[in-house]
């Protein structure tokens, strides 16, 4: 393993920061502005991808910018773990850029210039998180990421959005403080904060109490963005942001930066052995298992699709944390592989939710009966990703869940394996009603969503009765009960056609893209395809190889 001194990590970080100015300057010319975003996205991905072959060969790229604090270098280092995150974020940014254009223009959003500029900034920060070479640099970019994403969360400028933004800042800055404290503690204990695969050696000999404290601080600090309960509540609220933000940042970049931080702490600061010796793996895993079950339970009750997705995110992030905390090599592979797997699946789901919103202004699952006619491709992609979330084969989720299960069982952590299995069933419980309501129900013939809200057996308690009654009573006379089950304008009274056109069932659109703009459809299909590719040939997709490399480098075990 050699360190290649190169500017590429720095370029990967800066390329999107550099386009912020052109984006701001070309605010009056949207096409030019968006082309800056696209250019930066492609360039960033190219830079990161160019580092992949050497990283797979075991080398790392380092940009050293000098001394940051005494004993701490401000250096960027693209190692295997960093490339895993960087590659994922930069690849998905390309796709999200296209989607953003379709979404923001589709809704005629305000302040699109600020939006795209902040998005580019966020990606810079995310890349910095990926390529940080020590805890302090990681902390800096971690905080920058919070700052850069705030305008995106509060984009709506409504009271609700501002409140969500404040909450977001409070939570994540609080987490940042914890990270800083943990970093200082690690520095105090060992004299270094640089990432070392397998852990900083001096930590094993350090005072266990302080080492545990440092671990707890770091895990809690990063756990905020990883949405570990009880630090998760900013995430569902942040769903007030435009959907592309929810998709890339709140399913991939921001939340994964928290997970990634935990991965760094477990793998490169303490090392799995030291974590096991300190006895910190079990509590972390317990928190993760608790989170993944409880978040699934909460998700069962959400009617708003994005909120349901948010709680699903909370749950799935804990898969990753659980995999990291179980500390067995196979579970590490499973956890790290779940980073890209979950990213592809969840971004598909969010993209689909956003496309539905743009096209039909429908946000609630209970209003989506029969929407598969209107948006066939979108909902098909949704169905694929939802199946993957439940761990159905052919989709990415199956592979990572499989590794996680094997890891948990082989480590003797039966309870965590059970939690994973239960969560898989609950995923069926909260995602598949969306699928079947979209494709196999009609507005006048649908059951209650969320399912637990309605009477047992859904519609049959009264929905059909009312329909039948109206039918029998009046023949072709007004059947109000039918309209009851449908989509008359309850509160969708805004001027721009909310709920238009689906009062009597959705119109049928073709399977060839008639449902939306290809700016959105293309990304949706691309990420859905990506999650299938990851599910069938995870080795062919580069991610599993990188993950194996990371785990082999840390534990010395080839999985």
């Amino acid at each position, binding site marked *: 393993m050699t360190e290649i001194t190169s500017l590429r990590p720095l370029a990967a970080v800066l390329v999107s920061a550099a386009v912020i100015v052109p984006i701001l300057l070309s605010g009056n010319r949207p096409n030019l502005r968006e082309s800056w975003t696209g250019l930066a996205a492609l360039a960033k991905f190219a830079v990161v991808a160019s580092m992949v072959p050497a990283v797979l060969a075991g080398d790392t790229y380092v940009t050293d910018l000098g001394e940051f604090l005494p004993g701490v270098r401000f250096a960027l280092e693209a190692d295997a773990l960093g490339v895993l995150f960087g590659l994922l974020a930069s690849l998905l940014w390309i796709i999200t850029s296209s989607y953003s254009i379709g979404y923001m223009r589709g809704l005629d959003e305000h302040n699109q210039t600020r939006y795209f500029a902040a998005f580019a900034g966020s990606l810079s920060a995310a890349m910095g998180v990926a390529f940080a070479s020590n805890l302090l640099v990681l902390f800096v970019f971690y905080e920058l990421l919070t700052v850069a994403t705030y305008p995106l969360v509060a984009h709506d400028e409504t009271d609700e959005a501002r409140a969500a933004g404040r909450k977001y800042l409070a939570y994540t800055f609080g987490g940042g403080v914890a990270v800083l404290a943990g970093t200082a503690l690690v520095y105090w204990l060992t004299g270094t904060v640089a990432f070392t695969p397998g852990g900083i050696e001096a930590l094993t000999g350090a005072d266990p109490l302080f080492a545990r404290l440092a671990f707890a601080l770091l895990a809690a600090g990063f756990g905020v963005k990883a949405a570990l309960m009880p630090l998760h509540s900013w995430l569902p609220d942040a769903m007030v942001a435009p959907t592309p933000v929810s998709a890339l940042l709140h399913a991939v970049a921001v939340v994964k930066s928290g997970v990634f931080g935990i991965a760094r702490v477990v793998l490169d600061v303490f090392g799995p052995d030291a974590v096991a010796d300190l006895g910190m793996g079990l509590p972390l895993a317990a928190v993760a298992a608790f989170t993944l079950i409880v978040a699934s339970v909460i998700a069962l009750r959400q009617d708003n699709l994005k909120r349901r997705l948010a709680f699903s995110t909370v749950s799935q992030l804990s898969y990753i944390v659980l995999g990291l905390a179980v500390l067995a090599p196979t579970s590490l592979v499973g956890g790290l592989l779940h980073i890209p797997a979950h990213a592809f699946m969840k971004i598909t789901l969010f993209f689909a939710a956003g496309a539905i919103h743009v096209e039909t202004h429908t946000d609630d699952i209970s209003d989506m009966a029969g929407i598969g006619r209107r948006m066939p491709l979108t909902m098909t992609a949704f169905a694929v990703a939802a199946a993957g979330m439940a761990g159905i084969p052919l989709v990415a989720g199956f592979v990572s869940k499989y590794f996680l299960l094997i890891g948990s069982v082989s480590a003797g952590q039966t309870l965590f394996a059970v939690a994973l299995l239960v969560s898989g069933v609950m995923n069926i419980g909260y995602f598949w009603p969306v699928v079947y309501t979209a494709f196999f129900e009609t507005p006048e013939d649908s059951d209650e969503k969320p399912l637990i809200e309605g009477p047992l057996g859904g519609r049959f308690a009264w929905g059909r009765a009312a329909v039948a009654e109206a039918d029998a009573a009046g023949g072709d006379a007004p059947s109000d009960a039918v309209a009851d089950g449908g989509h008359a304008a309850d509160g969708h009274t805004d001027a721009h056609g909310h709920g238009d056109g689906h009062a*009597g069932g959705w119109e049928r659109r073709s399977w060839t893209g008639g449902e939306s703009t290809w700016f959105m459809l293309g990304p949706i299909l691309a990420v859905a395809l990506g999650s299938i590719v990851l599910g069938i040939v995870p080795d062919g997709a580069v991610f599993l190889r990188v993950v*194996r490399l990371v785990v082999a480098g840390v534990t010395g075990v080839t999985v």
Partner: protein
Amino acid sequence: MVDPVVPPFLAVLAAALVVPVLGRRGGHAVGLLVTAAVVPYVWLVPDGAHIQTLLFGFDAVLFNVDGFSRLMGLVFGFIGAVAVLYSWASGADERQTAFALGYVGTSLGAVFGGDWLTLIFFWELMAVTSTLLVWHYGGRAVRAGFRYALLHGVGGTLLLGAVVWQYVETGTFLFTGEGLVGAVAPILAGVGIGVNVGFIGLHAWLPDTYPRPHIAASVFLCVYTTKTGVYGMYRAFPEGELAIAYMGALMALFGASMALLQNDMRRLLSYHIQSQVGYMIAGVGLGTALATAGAFGHVFNHILYKSLLFMTVGVVIYRTGEEHLEELGGLWRRLPLTAVAFLIAALSIAGFPGFNGFVSKGMVLGAAHKEHYDVMWYLLLAGGVGTFLSFIKLGYYVFLHGEYDGDVRPANAGQKVAMVAVAIPCVAFGIYPPALFAILPDVGSFEYTTFTVGHVAEGLILAALGVVGFVLLKKPLGKVGRVPDVDALYNRAGFYGTRALVVGVTGCTPPSTARPSRPPRGSPRRSATRPPPSRASASCGRSRATGRPTATGPPGTSTCVRASGRACCSSRCCWWSRCWCSSDRRALSLSPSRSRRPPPTERPTASAPNGAIRPVTPRQRVYTNQAGRRRTGHPAWPSARPTRPRGPPDAHRNALTRHPNRRRPARAGAVPARRRRGDGRAHGGAGGAHRVARRRRGRRLARGPPAAAFEFTYTAVDDGYRVTVTHAGGDTVAAADGGRSRWSRRPASASASTTASSPGTRRPSARRRRCRRTRSSGSSGRRPADGRGCSRPTERRRSRPRPRDRAPEPRGDGAPSAS
């Protein structure tokens, strides 16, 4: 063996992908060819052919041919082809057949997998594709399909757990020939596979799901899932496991007994799947060479005759539109070939000498007898008697009993070909058992002579017992209504348990309600006047209908009350505690469910005979109580939720809507569509069902109506009171007179109704059994006791909302606009 072999599932799955774009005819042709090609392909691929590969970095064998998988592949391919033909003939659309082909393909993948990883891979996919096949039918099948998906999700999860534990134990996924080892894996696998094969207690998905989808979908469903389960059980326990064997024997008896109590034809057959799979499981569990051979022979035979049974019953449903035994009878004259096919299949499943079921069932019985498991033997024999009984019942009430009056055309050509193609091997393998033995997997040597005096006598005695038993049990069986199964228990437990869990975790106020209202994104102007929130985001203090703060208090300040008027436990409004904002009348008016019709501009006027005319709004019920006082609000009574007429069994609606050549027995006037000759009662089995239906209706009545749709005027009249149910449009729908629970459908006053008319003239041909019963039991000429229950619309009840003939309605507030 490194020949370039192609796993057969690839071709079938590829066909599944292209079928939807080929149209109905072309799609079915492709499906037929591909599945039919599986049979010779599987037959010709040499033993031991396999494809070794790495799946996610683990050794895996995607395709592995041995005697067991070949047997499964042969029959799966054959029945797949027949069922595709049958689908085409029965009017299935190409998308349904595509789902079915996906199901066939994943099942083939599961049985040809050479390791646990491949098996679980396809196992879970099979659950998905079969769910899609069920869902595709829509209607009642959707919710049943979801229950199916959940249960199979649990089963698949358990099996996944077993596979993981097996891997951790042995370090490999490959079949070792020893089944699952360790302490945990066998238990998990036993229960997980037990879901698929219908262990008692885990079986309720079978009768719940299989009767609901399209008739052709049922043919597919009855073949693959359970038999793949048997195959998986063998892979998990190749040496057998006595507990499983006993479970199998119990299943055989339990399934047959439950089947005997059913009146829905496909439900009856579904219980028989469990019963017959019980024989197979008993064979697998016994584990001797004879038992295993018998089990797999029974898999093969069962697939043949069970699919034939579902096809014959499907033809009956297709041609008559009836699912229930009460509605049928005397069809053998009109469906002669179907009746013969049914006879063959019934004799096969019952194990009558000379039919294929006799051979394989005899092997399992012989194995149990040989090993001196007497209890098991008797259980299996008793299951055999139950099988005879229930198929005599089924055949008698469908084909013999009475006479069918309507015009029923015989099965169409495609259906006939499909049925004959399956009936022939049923007889052939029964007459010449060595042909069956030739395709059985090599499980070691065993000796079994099919036609010994003892075996034949056994079969004949069972048959005789069945006939005698039916004669004795015919009357008591007629009194049996719908028998609840365990799902009545665990559906409720699951539903209310989940609800309690979710509420326990998330608290009383659902997050979606507590959340500040979020406007639809993308409003061009972001001003202070926000568009009202959607329904789910309305919070306390806001009318659920309009999203605006209601008059009784500013947002957040209105108090919470129960619908009954009692105070709430907390200040939070919550569907769970049945607490609602006091400002929210509609929520208060008993219906927390979605009532989303915009208020009409003109308030309808409900006119009752005694002149109690008063404008009403959809959200407010006005009624006069017995003392003559006018009341507004939500009376505890009458909570007349409109009852659902016993609708047509919607399972055949494709056949109804898509096949004009199918004629309904239409008769003018109030004469029942079909009248039986024979005993005075229309059908013995109707009594119990009738009572059950009435009880259900009672329960339904006890709940609230959809509040916006109907108004209730409650008037004191001479000898009691009268309740008039008025449609929001102004039409009187129904009226009930004092004390008597009878609902009449006549308009309460001449002026009140223009559209409602007497059901006697409206849809005469579609009256249900209840009407007939009422009449035939001596009260002819009288209006049926339950006019509502007897009316049945003939079309699929998915009417569209009417064209908006009223003026555009004001959005938002539901304030009355007329005086």
